[in-house]
């Protein structure tokens, strides 16, 4: 499957990916409305570090996801077809078990678990996630993953 890869050497800590993520997960898909009217909860991708060293952290879409195994309410699911892991906000109880299980620190809870759903809503290539399309320096790339094949 295609995954998002973050490349530390090109990340410049601008956090445009975070803005793009919140916008992509708004109803209006408009950044101004997303921030000022809808108050969309936090981004599902986070840039860690500072101006000198930084990297975007988001879900690796693991083939054997610990978060799915750990989920107590069945909200966290891996789509067997696409391999994309999503959390159903209707079923999530916000217990944070997934947060403690994720080895990469990719899940955040703001009343419910928020994680990357490989949105494919970007304005770039067809199917490109919004954060990848918004990255000005190709520090986020959306490519077929090596070594981790579909269904693994």
């Amino acid at each position: 499957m295609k995954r998002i890869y973050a490349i530390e050497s090109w990340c410049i800590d601008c956090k445009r990916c975070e803005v793009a993520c919140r916008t992509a997960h708004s109803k209006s898909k408009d950044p101004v409305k997303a921030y000022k009217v809808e108050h969309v909860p936090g981004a599902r991708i986070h840039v860690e570090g500072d101006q000198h060293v930084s990297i975007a952290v988001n879900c690796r879409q693991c083939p054997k996801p610990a978060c799915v195994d750990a989920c107590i309410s069945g909200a966290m699911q891996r789509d067997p077809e696409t391999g994309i892991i999503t959390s159903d906000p209707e079923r999530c109880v916000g217990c944070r078990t997934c947060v403690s299980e994720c080895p990469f620190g990719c899940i955040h809870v703001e009343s419910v678990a928020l994680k990357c759903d490989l949105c494919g809503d970007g304005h770039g290539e067809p199917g490109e996630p919004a954060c990848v399309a918004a990255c000005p320096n190709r520090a986020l790339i959306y490519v077929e993953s090596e070594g981790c094949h579909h269904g693994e």
Partner: protein
Amino acid sequence: MLDYVLPRYRVLRDKDECIQCGVCERSCSNGVHHVDTDLGRVTADHSKCVNCQRCVVMCPTQAIAISKWPQVGNGTNNWTLENMQDIAKQAQTGAVLLASMGNPKPYPIYWDHLLLNASQVTNPSIDPLREPMETRVFLGSRPNVLKVNEREHTISPKIPPQIKLDVPVMFGAMSFGAISLNAQKSLAMAAEELGTYFNTGEGGLHKDLERYGKNCIVQVASGRFGVDPHYLNAGAAIEIKIGQGAKPGIGGHLPGTKVNEEVSRTRMIPEGTDAISPAPHHDIYSIEDLRQLIFSIKEATRYTKPVAVKIAAVHNVAAIASGIARAGADIIVVDGFRGGTGAAPKRTRDNVGIPIELALAAVDARLHDEGIRSMVSVVASGSIRSSADIVRAIALGADAVYIGSAALIALGCHQCQDCGSGKCNWGIATQKPDLTRRLNPEIGAQRVVNLIRGWNREIQEMIGGMGINAIDSLRGNRLMLRGVGLNEKELEILGVKYAGE
């Protein structure tokens, strides 16, 4: 002491659009923007803004625009706000005013007074989409007469070394030190893909770029930084830099703060020391001395590589070019006064030198008159802004052109003219790792390749319109140009007729 210098720009922020995401704050190395949580809005320190427009481009909601500082002058043409601000700066610091990029003063831009010809009825124009169109150029010395032995399939005399350009554009000298390694690497990768050349400038060739040697012109300037036999042989050609259009008559000064470990190793100078290029080459005080250096370099490279000599366009440029041709140079580079620089004294940048259009026309005419034009190739540089400028330059007699500023603009440069500060927000004219990282050479090279591909297509369209199918047939073909808004003397020097003639 209270600083009397006024801000130059004012940051306009649309409060309705601003989402306080902080992208602008993190994008600005000058510390202009600040997300103030107490005030609940983003503030700006206008005095620090240099108008590089990084924040404008990066802002996800297009909430930012930069405007001029609204302060008006006192209304005189003489004591303009700029003149008074320059005095205020020098009264504050007692220093020489430094500036970057090309001469911004409103001197005539002759390119904009030269119009191109096109075929109508009597000779057919050529459609480059349907017919072959040659934009390849060879640079180097050519023999006056070529004898062909048809029986043995040989030619004599032996053709001197030449370099082949698939497009009539090269990337001008910009040193590692003045620009970042990522910027130079972008140009190197683009040159390789386009089949043309980038120029190391006077800062040596970084070891990571040696693999682009066949697309590289290595420069030998008065500081001789990074020059050794390995360096001379690493490139496809060698360029001796005598002068630079932006600052004729003076050398260079790379401040020690920019000389980090990598720059130090490449330039072969101690880390943190100022890299000072003397105004003259201390071994060149005559054409004969120049000839010695040219042939020393030819010896060092076993006569396998052409040697170029780059001079700034100054008053006697044609006579100097003639001397350079006779000194044995294979290529003469003439750099006009609008050419860019990483840093130059402002008064030199703004007042010294002559326009490239006049210099180029004078050099080409002089070399023709003396019957030595084929001994050298002529490269024009100093603010080539578009493909139309290239067509005009070639029609005025250039074999090819160098672009510097235009290539940097493709990389993201917005001509803010603050290169000297070392805080380039686009990762170009800086050595700070957090800033150089902003220029991913993969993207940079792609943008430059796109630009030159577009320009080359436009060149083909324009010369095809003239009924010409090879750039060689345009060279020095001044009948393809007509002047508008020029006086008789200007037309005479340019060697073109007035529109309607």
